[in-house]
């Protein structure tokens, strides 16, 4: 450490500001340390009592909410990755084999799960969080052709978390699963689940209120995601698949024309097609129809921590804000 008295006057100013910088850094690192210190003091035993694996980022967030500090959660399909085309790594197979409980969404969402559990030699508890939920059929709205998303028509739609009511059921199933795996922590899990369910209830009311101001006829959205069937049913929004264009194939004039006609005929204001191949093409469609292409929707995964949807609550809020804003038009 420098002694202030020994510093010549011209340098004093800079030294003081660096010292302030050091102090700030120290404060910051204390602030960063604080939660982990807390985490070390609250559980009776050292370290987490249960090791859990959740199949994808959204489910992982819900399990963390219920498990709190007692449960260490590994997520297989991380933020921003696609659960439909997931390839497990050896590290993840090891995480699975070391876990006491594995949470999956079910309804055919993780087609790779059964094989992974077998490969990893997993004998522990499996919890399918959609248990007890009445599933919708997938593809209730018409898909653009060239669409291949892993689950076929007539199969159940796995994206049940897009309805907050179903997320509450997820939380109930997660608490039940954790209680079976770790009876000692059951009271804590139940308390966490109850507190989080309150937050979910408030979120649900918030989303209902956001849509309430918009006339039903105006609640129409074109999106290339096929994940919003439950959201549509819960909040009275119509989701139409873009006609003519798909992610996989290069655009044809007919495809663009079909989408333009669809937007005009349905009088659409909200266009969420960021996953289509060429951003310039979307801009062209926007010019043609006078519709400004809207932002991003989070369907199958959370964003990373710096994004707008790092948690389930944030994701549902971000989606709802983007949707309602787009539907209202310019």
């Amino acid at each position, binding site marked *: 450490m420098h002694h202030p008295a020994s510093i010549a006057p011209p340098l004093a100013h800079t030294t003081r500001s660096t010292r302030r910088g050091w102090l700030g850094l120290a404060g910051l690192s204390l602030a960063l340390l604080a939660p982990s210190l807390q985490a070390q003091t609250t559980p009776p035993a050292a370290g987490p009592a249960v090791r859990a694996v959740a199949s994808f980022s959204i489910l992982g967030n819900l399990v963390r909410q219920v498990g709190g500090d007692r449960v260490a959660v590994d997520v297989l399909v991380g933020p921003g990755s696609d659960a439909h085309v997931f390839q497990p790594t050896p590290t993840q197979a090891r995480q699975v084999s070391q876990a006491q409980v594995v949470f999956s969404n079910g309804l055919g969402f993780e087609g790779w799960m059964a094989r992974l559990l077998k490969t990893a030699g997993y004998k522990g508890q499996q919890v399918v969080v959609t248990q007890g939920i009445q599933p919708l059929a997938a593809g209730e709205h018409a898909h653009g052709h060239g669409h291949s998303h892993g689950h076929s028509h007539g199969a159940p739609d796995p994206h049940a978390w897009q309805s907050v009511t179903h997320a509450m059921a997820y939380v109930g199933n997660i608490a039940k699963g954790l209680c079976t795996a770790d009876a000692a922590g059951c009271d804590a899990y139940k308390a966490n689940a109850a507190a989080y369910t309150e937050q979910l209830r408030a979120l649900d009311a918030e989303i209902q209120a956001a849509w309430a101001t918009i006339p039903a006829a105006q609640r129409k959205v074109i999106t290339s995601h096929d994940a919003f069937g439950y959201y549509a049913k819960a909040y009275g929004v119509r989701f139409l698949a873009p006609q003519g264009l798909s992610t996989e194939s290069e655009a044809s004039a007919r495809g663009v*024309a079909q989408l333009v006609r669809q937007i005009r005929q349905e009088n659409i204001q909200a266009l969420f097609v960021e996953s289509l191949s060429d951003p310039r093409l979307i801009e062209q469609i926007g010019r043609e129809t006078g519709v400004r292409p809207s932002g991003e929707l989070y369907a199958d995964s959370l964003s990373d921590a710096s994004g707008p949807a790092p948690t389930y609550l944030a994701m549902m809020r971000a989606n709802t804000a983007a949707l309602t804003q787009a539907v209202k038009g310019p």
Partner: protein
Amino acid sequence: MTAPVWSALGPDGLVFALLIQPFAEFGFMQRALAGCLALSVSAAPVGVFLMLRRMSLTGDAMAHAILPGAAIGYLIAGLSLTAMTIGGIVAGLAVAISSGLVARNTVLREDTSLAAFYLLSLALGVLIVSVRGNSVDLLHVLFGTVLALDDAALTLLVGIAGVTLVSLTLLYRPLVLECLDPGFLRSVSHWSPVAHFGFMALLVINLVAGFHALGTLMAVGLMVLPAATARLWVRRLGALLLLAVLLALAACLMGLLISYHADWPTGPTIVLSLGAAYLLSMLLAPRGLVRHQHPGSRHRVA
């Protein structure tokens, strides 16, 4: 569109539904047509001179040389027309000038030095793209689509067409001489390097224009195929230039309409229309396969 709708419209309605309606209903079709017209008027004549100078494959090599420049432009400034245009032109000109200088001042021939420099440019581009960004995003961007032309891109295409036509008029005589006998032009005039480098510059800006409209590789098709097809029908340079432009225009119109009615991707459909014209001409044209045995009809150009 389904057949019964057309039959109910009568013959006039059918023609309208097939040929006019797509352009009347959709602005993006009009823009695509306008962009194609501008590109045909400038790229096809450049293609004729490429063919006459036996440099048709040079077009392909230069297209590869441009790609990294455009990619670097994209990495620096995102999906910006200006950045990608400047990047493409700089990379293309750098390769053209350095390979031309090497060919004129060393023992290496034009084809070898061009191959060397375009490979360097390509490797550099691939390296920078892999280090700096995610290539998946970039791949979508590097294959332009004629369906997505905006006002700025259209202005650029028309501007490049104008510059090309004026420059070709100015360079016409030295270019023709250089096509016939490059050694002669070099010995009697100092116009030879001007003709060569001027022409290479035209090639580069036309490839950049085609890159925005069709994607780089398809753009070469709009240069080479009309020239080759026209050569099967006519001999005189004036007729060659005119027929090449007309063929390019017709193929663009056909390609857009087929893409609209048959739901095929637009860029490949345009180039395949040109390819169909080329193959048909090969069978039917006076200078095609039938007359190939005639010794008199070969090697007489302009």
